[in-house]
């Protein structure tokens, strides 16, 4: 397929998804046109809207990259949500319970902690996949729930800040990711995310590691024949994937909430799956997909504030996008439909 065909097919699928989601909204008794207008207007017409879109896109860059990286190795990591929680908790604890240190050093430690704990959480799945040939999809789903519950326990008891809310104490300023501009919630976590897009691109396409990871993902038997350690690569890929998701959690804690709050993620990890699929598992694609989803989410929040339509409408759009992107043969149905329509007119 030529590039323009690919882009064309993608745009067509996106359009169909938006149309279908709009149809659902229409049958729920709302005007989809008003909704889309309010969303787009709210998300990009002013700086606040743009900032909000970027704030919403930030964690999705991390989780999208996480899922995409594992997918490149042929491993389906559904567990980004749990890894994100573990990373967030690690960063929150390092940021709040280690006394203030020089700024970059403390921040670095907190981010590193987030990456390591996210990676380790994913490594459990890698271990079970390699040793017991367990299906990583089910394992990572189970690890999601366990991870979230574990963090909930820590936030409720072990690391709980005084007060009624299940959350950890505020992180020290030396561990915080600075805000970008004033009056927005946008933080340098976005820059970390952008940096990671570049780094992961380089790793995947310009290093031996990335080359071997992708070979394993495309044809594990050829990889083994070429002397690549397939089990080892699976481990590495899942660890890196988990670390990326963990960094996403750390970014939310250090940049946005300044602490770990029980149940803080509205499903960034699951959205990461959609982002990775839409982005074709490439870092650049992930960036665009995350921005689109961030925009949708921000638009949804504006929608929620200004109309009666709840932000959950965005979920319908996301679902439609996933279904239209992930079903390879769905456009054939359309072609077939057009063809039969044409023959009908001939008769």
């Amino acid at each position, binding site marked *: 397929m030529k590039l323009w065909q690919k882009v064309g097919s993608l745009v067509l699928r996106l359009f169909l998804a938006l149309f279908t989601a709009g149809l659902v909204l229409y049958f729920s008794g709302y005007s989809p046109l008003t909704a889309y207008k309010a969303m787009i207007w709210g998300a990009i017409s002013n700086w606040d809207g743009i900032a909000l879109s970027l704030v919403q896109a930030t964690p999705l860059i991390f989780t999208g990259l996480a899922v995409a990286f594992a997918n490149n190795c042929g491993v389906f990591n559904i567990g980004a949500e749990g890894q994100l929680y573990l990373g967030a908790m690690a960063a929150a604890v390092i940021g709040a319970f280690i006394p203030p240190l020089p700024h970059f050093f403390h921040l670095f430690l907190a981010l590193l902690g987030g990456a390591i704990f996210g990676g380790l959480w994913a490594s459990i799945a890698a271990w079970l996949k390699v040793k017991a040939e367990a299906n990583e999809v089910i394992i990572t789903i189970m690890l999601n729930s366990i991870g979230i519950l574990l963090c909930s326990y820590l936030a409720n008891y072990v690391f709980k800040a005084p007060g009624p809310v299940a959350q950890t104490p505020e992180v020290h300023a030396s561990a915080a990711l600075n805000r970008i501009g004033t009056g927005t919630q946008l933080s340098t976590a976005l820059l970390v995310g952008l940096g990671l897009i570049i780094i992961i691109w380089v790793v995947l396409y310009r290093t031996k590691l990335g080359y071997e990871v992708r070979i394993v993902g495309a044809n594990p038997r050829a990889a083994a024949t070429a002397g690549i350690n397939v089990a080892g690569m699976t481990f590495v890929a899942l660890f890196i994937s988990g670390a990326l998701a963990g960094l996403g959690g750390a970014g939310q804690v250090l940049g946005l909430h300044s602490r770990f709050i029980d149940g803080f993620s509205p499903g960034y990890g699951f959205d990461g799956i959609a982002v990775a699929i839409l982005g074709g598992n490439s870092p650049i694609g992930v960036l665009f997909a995350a921005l689109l989803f961030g925009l949708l989410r921000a638009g949804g929040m504006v929608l929620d504030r200004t109309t009666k339509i709840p932000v959950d*409408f965005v979920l319908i759009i996301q*679902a439609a996008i996933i*279904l239209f992107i992930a079903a390879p043969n769905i456009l054939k*149905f359309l072609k077939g439909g057009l063809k039969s329509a044409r023959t009908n007119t001939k008769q």
Partner: protein
Amino acid sequence: MLEQILNSEAFFLTMALLASTLRMATPLGLAAMGAVYSERAGVVNLGLEGLMLVGAFFGVLGSYLTGNAWLGVLLAVISGGVLAFLLALVTLRYKANHVVAGVALNLLSLGLTSVLLVAIWGNRGKSADVEGIYPVNIPFLSDIPVLGEIFFRQSPFFYLLIILMVISWFLFYRTKWGLRLRAIGENPAAVDSLGIPVNTYKYIAVIAGGMLAALGGAYLSLGELSLFGRNMVSGRGYIALAANILGNWNPVGVVLSSLLFGFANAVEMNLQLYGWPTQFVQMIPYVVTIFVLGGLVRKVEAPKALGEHFDRGDTHV
């Protein structure tokens, strides 16, 4: 002596615990049974959560519109069937990855029910109170001491679960339909070579599974609260998935594993009453599943062709 035991507080608590175990197990069992149908036919059903949610919502809607809770259940079952048909369509016909399709299904259900919740009741958190489905005392049996109180004063959904368990077991292991379905989940190419329409069976099984999962969801709304709350399934779909695995894709097995997980649920509620941490008890289903899949607890065997797309290759179309 006996009287002493029967009147003791510990006995009372145990009874309450067992009764609530059955209550908690009911939705899990129904949804897990749904997973058995779908996955025995080789289609991974990660959309249980969404199917339950849709069932919960449309159950309440049906009851709200008609004033009859059982018509609500009917609408719930239909909605589950429709959503499951969508899953079957995108996976079987349009060849979407089963896992991805399931994830989309869950997002769709949460979005759809939340939007409709506002559209219909103008409330973002919960629906209006509707006519629910209440526990039924089975005549005579419910008067049996101890057993009667635990087993025969339950919600009709519980009785339904037991009946469906028996029917499903019979269907899977005593009819040709079940024999063929089990064979399809293992080796669709072999079944196809015998001239059996593989995809028709798959569609029927996935849709039936969706209906069962929706029934489980309807229990949560109509059987427990008599209203719908946003995202009220809150992860039970994943526990049902776990119950399906621990139950070894077997109708009787999933009811037993649902009872185990229901018991953990009941214990957790009691701990909550005393202000103790509940998280570790809540983890039990997930941890057990991981141990099972890691080969550490018991041997389970997933259908061999689970999650695979079936293509005939170079045969006549």
